[in-house]
């Protein structure tokens, strides 16, 4: 598996507890539109992702991330910087 696939799988595992509707996850899956997460769910999820990858996703960055693919790319970039 490539590094990106690896990160995607880890992100998908973190989404699972919050994926109440059983939405199929892909790069284009939107947190707001497809998963229908409210702000509280987003907050809990972001904290889980930060701890999983030992990174910080600032609220400024979060505003730019709408889909799973964008999140995976952000995680890869942040990990490379860290």
């Amino acid at each position, binding site marked *: 598996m490539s590094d990106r696939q690896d990160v995607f799988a880890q992100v998908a595992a973190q989404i699972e507890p919050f994926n109440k509707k059983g939405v199929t996850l892909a790069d284009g899956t939107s947190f707001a539109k497809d998963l229908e997460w409210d*702000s*509280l769910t987003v907050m809990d999820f972001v*904290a889980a992702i*930060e*701890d999983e990858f030992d990174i*910080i996703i*600032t609220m*400024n960055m979060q505003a730019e991330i709408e889909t799973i693919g964008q999140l995976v790319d952000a995680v890869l970039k942040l990990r490379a910087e*860290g």
Partner: protein
Amino acid sequence: MGEVIEQSATTMRDAGAETDLFSKFDGILAERAALLATGVRDPYAIVMSEVKSPTLAVINGKDTILLGTYNYMGMTFDPDVVQAGKDALDEFGSGTTGSRVLNGTYQGHKECEDALKEFYGTRSAMVFSTGYQANLGMISTLAGKGDYVIIDADSHASIYDGCFLGNAEIVRFRHNSVEDLDKRLGRLPAEAQKLVVLEGVYSMLGDVAPLPDMVAAVRKHPNCMILVDEAHGMGFFGKHGRGVYEEQGVEKEIDFVVGTFSKSVGTVGGFCVSDHPKFEVMRFAARPYIFTASLPPSVVATAATSIRKLMHAGEKRAHLWENSRRLHKGLRDMGFNLGTETAQSAIISVILTDQTQAVAMWQALLELGLYVNMARPPATPAGWFLLRCSLCAEHSSEQVGQILDIFAAAGRSTGVIPG
């Protein structure tokens, strides 16, 4: 006459049916309409036609005990406070019509800042027009581009908005979690300047922050300053009533305290106090301080008088704590689900299962002559519907007894507690 009214009703464009900028609010409008269609009274449209005391008002023509005002120390009708306001109106007029940095600083504003400096024992004090603006001004100005603001996830809206107004990077940690705060600070660049924002009392559940542990966690990391919002702690926490940070003995570790005049002080306005030698420069940099009119002379006069009286309010503090503990225990014994295990502050939150139950309970209380605040997501943590009670030092022991009786009756009639 009828014609004039008709004309005034159509003076501006009426475009309700079209898709326009208001369409994004259709969800809110539909939810409200559905709620009100069930026949309940609107929890967000209460009008107090008469206010008889800090604890009693007339709502819908009926005497109602106030248990949701944040008027913790009951200063709103204090004779000295009211007189100070009247004198200032006579001597200085109804308003300043100007910014603090131009024509809006009167003798009263300086006296109010002097009272704050004495109350907090700090070198500097800066008065803003509201507590909301104090947080906007301090957070957005202190932390600039490239700096970090680290906030609790349950922070008040004014703290979030202060972050959004500024250009810093915003990092959240899980509510009151020392470990989470420590971990996040550890992941930030050591050389970056950081502002950690904490609250003494969190207003939704009335829970208190573990400040000594949080401060210790922050001090492990370089380049951090700490701001504590004591909006709901001023007046009755600590020996001098300064707030939770005083009660928990971390005064020497806090860089900035933000507070408000609209809770214990009993009027409106906000402030920040600090010992930092360069603090006064904020007057020339904080936009929410500069680009708004200053508080009216009567308001700063009432605030200054109230602050000075709060320095010597030991007995009132003791009575407020007694009231809070008694209400908390009473509600708990009846079987209500409360936001905290014990009474941590003068806010006691009753957790309801959903909006329907919360509104039914709220209305039952009101009909029996008791007003509490209703709070709902997203303002509340964990998506909870809350009935928030805030006690006042002026609630008599008899009133607390009445409050408990009303809760018992309303709880049983709505099925929130077993009949």
